[in-house]
């Protein structure tokens, strides 16, 4: 496991992580929660991708996450390879109140497993858990300083259209069991989260940190400068937006 990495203990390791998922499921919100422990009711849609970094301490080791938060709309799909190339980890997000978003998540997983870095660690996150939890809206977030602006975000989120009196669980469209079973079958880490309350967000990143083969990253970054850089420079030369996911590698990995 990661902890056994010997000499790496004192060194901070860079981990490239990409977030994927349907539009408005809350990818940017999850990142914002993780990076600055904030929540914004009206987060602008991501254009192309956003980039943030955050350190994460794991026992005796410090990981520096380089997070690429991508745009969710279907038509941005063809840009995604630009962002997930060389990624060591991916968080595929869906919205627990929207069944179709899980379908989209599955297709992302499929794509990652075929065309991304073969050792990539993938986590599946069902977000907006607060919307299906009976207590969360009334009891308020656990010590979140931003709780004041949460009042007006009811209009912001499509899933929140339900009247206040309604049973929240009825908003749920993706049963936990179903998603969890899928995650298990596909070999993914699984979480249900709420960027709004913060529930489950940090866990995603710490669990990923545990699973990342750190020695491997260290070894390769010592060797060639950057993970994967040597092997992929050919693809990069192809130009700006390389749609051929991984250049030569992509071709034999996926013979379509």
């Amino acid at each position, binding site marked *: 496991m990661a902890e056994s990495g010997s000499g790496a203990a004192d060194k901070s390791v860079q981990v*490239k992580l990409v977030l994927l998922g349907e*539009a*408005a499921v809350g990818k940017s919100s999850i990142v914002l929660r993780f990076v600055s422990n904030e929540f*914004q*009711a*009206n*987060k*602008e*849609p*991501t*254009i*192309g*991708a956003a*980039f943030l*970094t955050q350190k994460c301490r794991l026992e005796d080791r410090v990981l520096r996450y*380089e997070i690429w938060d991508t*745009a*969710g*709309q*279907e*038509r*941005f*799909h*063809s*840009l995604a390879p*630009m*962002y997930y190339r060389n990624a060591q980890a991916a968080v595929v997000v869906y919205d627990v109140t929207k*069944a*179709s*978003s*899980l*379908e989209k998540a599955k*297709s992302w997983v*499929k*794509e990652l497993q*075929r065309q991304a870095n073969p050792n990539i660690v993938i986590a599946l996150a069902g977000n907006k858990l607060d919307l299906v939890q009976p207590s969360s809206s009334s009891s308020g977030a656990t010590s979140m300083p931003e709780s004041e602006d949460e009042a007006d975000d009811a*209009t*912001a989120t*499509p899933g929140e259209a339900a009247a206040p009196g309604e049973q929240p669980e009825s908003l749920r*469209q993706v049963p936990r069991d179903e998603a969890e079973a899928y995650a298990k079958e596909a070999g993914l880490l699984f979480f249900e989260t709420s960027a709004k309350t913060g529930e489950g967000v940090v866990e995603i990143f710490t669990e990923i940190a545990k699973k990342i083969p750190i020695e491997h990253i260290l070894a390769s970054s010592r060797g060639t400068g*950057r993970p994967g*850089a040597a092997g*992929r*420079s050919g693809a*990069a*030369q192809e*130009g*700006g*937006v*390389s*749609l*051929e996911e991984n250049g030569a590698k992509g071709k034999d990995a*996926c*013979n*379509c």
Partner: protein
Amino acid sequence: MSTISTQLRTFKEPTKEQLTQLFFSIPPSITARSEKDGLERMEINAVLSLSAEAEEDSYAGKLYLIPPFLSFASLDRKSCRFTLPLCTIRRVERLNARAGIYALSLSLWHGMKIVVQLTSLRPTADLFCSMLRDALKAELQHGQMKAVRNFVKTCYSETLVLSTSPAAEEELEEKTPQEGQEGSPSNDTPYHVGLGLKFKFPGDPKKLREASKVKLWTTYLKTHGRNLTLLRYPQCTRLVQVGLPNRLRGEMWEVLSGSLFLRFSNPGLYEQILEDNKGRTSTSTEDIEKDLHRSLPEYSAYQSEEGISALRRVLQAYSFQNPELGYCQAMNILAAALLIYMSEEQAFWLLEVICDRLLPGYYSTSMHGTLLDQRVFESLVQKCLPIIHDYFQEVDVQLSVASLPWFLSLFINSMPMVFACRIIDCFFCMGPKVLFQVGLAILKINGEELLKIQDDGGFIQLMRSYFASLGNSAHPKSPDPRARAITRFQELLLVSFREFAIITDDTIHNERRKFRSEIVFSIESFSKRAAVRNLKSLERFTKEQAGFIYDALYRAMCVVPPPAPVMTPVPSLISDGNEEKPETRIGLRTFRVFLSEVATWARDEKVIINGFQQRVDREVAEHEFIDRLFYFWDVSCKGALSFQDLVSGLDGVMFNDLMENIEWFFNLHDKNKDGYLTKDEVLTLSESLLFIFRFEIGDAYLGAVSRFMTNAFEYGDALLPQPEEKGEEDDAPLPDIGHNQPYLNLATFRMVVLADEILESFFETDLSACFKLEPVPMMDLPSSNNGFLGDLISNIATDDNKKLFNRFTDRIGQTIGKHQVIHRPAIGRYTKLDEPKARESLLTPSMRQSPSTSPTSATDAAVRVPSPSSVSTSNLSAAEASKISPLSMVKNANDALMERPQFAIDDALDDDGDTDDEFGLGEDDGVMDEVDAFLEAHDSGLTEEQRELAKDLLNAKPVK
């Protein structure tokens, strides 16, 4: 990818005429009307000068009549230009000046006079004048002249200049206001305004020096026209470069981009679109809804219902108007920014111009325009900033991780609003090249820092901190207070327009052309892989085969595009998720084309020999059998087939053995799936067989079908089904069975088929083998004649021309008795056995390699045959060259003969000196003093003598 777009393949390079029209921002939809009226275009050399107070130099250039517009561009194409709707011209007079001078004075509706001296030879000038007269007349007939007066009231500029322009005032007063102008001018102003008027414009008006900007513009608009009649002299560009005043910004955006013309010529359409589509939902409206509260949320208007609903209406109207594009994230941010400065109707039309002309393909479902321009940008970086480019390669940094959002959201997403708006000002004024110039300047200014970054992340962070510092001084340590006052943003514009002036429209155009096919290819292979990957089931196909099915589907969609996917209302909250996704589904007509790509009998192939060439004309077959197949494969009863349906459908027939094929064919014709064919269905089935066999040579197949029918009815009668066994209550056992009653079951059918050798072999192999997952061979066979006509055809490689050519050679062939047409058989198995003689005499060996029997695969044939007659789709430039119509050729020749030498054109147009004296515009406030007021020196290319003449003309009297 669930939707497949065909725009990429169908792209055509614009013609020279279209490029001119693009240059002048004239919407094609408007000129189409005049074309219908039979009004022609013409261009002529001219010198433009302005009457009245204007003191500008005169400009030599070209005058273009593009009905219903009159346009002018100076020789350098940037110093001076205008695009005037003809309906704004009230009077045209020929001026009485020195002999041999041909000059026209144009009076515009608000009294401004323009003088154009036509410098081509007399007959050309005469022709131009008479065409101008016709075009003006047509406008008058359309009542456009009247429309002007009402329309200009919606423009803020009129109000701005009105107080001091008596002529215009009279004009406006003359007409009492009639029915309120459509659109949404707010209640207290006649003109259109944006949200900014109520919710405040971003930025500090003092700091932006709004008052003096307004003053400068008022002066300019008075002397140089405004809204529909704006003349763009160098000062106009300079004023734009120092930033438009907030109140005028919206209108200037629509004037500079040309979207004003769309609004002018489509009164009320915006409201109409909203009205017509009330309550309609689509995937786009759903996506829009998600993003409404996520568009410039920090701006106060978008925290109110007023702002949100304006944004909703504009985006929805656009998505209804252009359903293929629909809605793309980033458009919300763009529209939100526009709405601060302009009304909904104005924003709607501007959005149209942006998506359609300025940033073509940026927001389309494939986003090919975005990808293309990123590639172009990268190539420009390589050319202009090779060190940075090489370094990025070295450390494996992708330029577009940072630059893509710049282009996609016009910097609104990247830098503070006040600065982004100024770039947008320049973008509308000078065109899309501005984005590239600014992009290059950003990299250049940050060059040193960029050479230190290690990865994509570092790049993004550097850019982010640079954008955050744009308001700071560019030279904070400079002892000169003037230098210290220059902000980093001013420095950015300065570098953009001074150092990257070499980037012109042509540069962008050429680069785009260079990389287009590369981008198209990568998008296509990407979406193909995605589509194949997203199949629920590959069935028994390999990925390559599924890829081929995709290709065939794609080609079919290029021929008959399917309707844009419209989301059906979600039936229940708990849908399984698949129903909601827009998915490309094809209708029957597209399906026929698709099938003709994969099944030999679904196309009519005629081998034509006319003595000059041999070719295959291919047409899509139409038959009830094909329609039947369509509904047979439509398992979800949607009336349309998805990619998956096609894959599964083909799987159902392509891997069958004899027995399975017989059963498949039986089921295909057993409409109610009761396990029995009715008598009618037996007949239909026979017709299907006849259809498949229609081109087989000899009558062996005909005989087989006829034997089949005899046997079917014989056995059928003998083995009449026992209704009791079937357990169907409503079937009374009838001795004489009705046409619609169960008649023949599978077992009997099988027996009948197996009784016939030909049918047996058909079901054993041929039926499945008729489906071919390989490219259909090229339309042309190797030409037997490489002489004169062979050369000719290689020169006329466009499809249209080829058709003409083919018809031409056919006619010759017919007259010399060498024209022959042979239908190519779908199976072609028995032909050799039955009638070897007949075939030998008709077909050359090369033609006998029909796709179904040929051992050389079709791919080989297509690659191998570099026949001069093969259609080369990539050979566009040759195609262009050959498109010259005889008429225009004659005209060109005439022009060449008649035109006298042009004015001596000063080639050194781009001299970069003497810009300093351009700054002081006599305004003490110092607005124009800003360093970024920089503009290339303009040189009209006139001699001293010509300048004199132009001045003379301004005072000349009209010819009586």
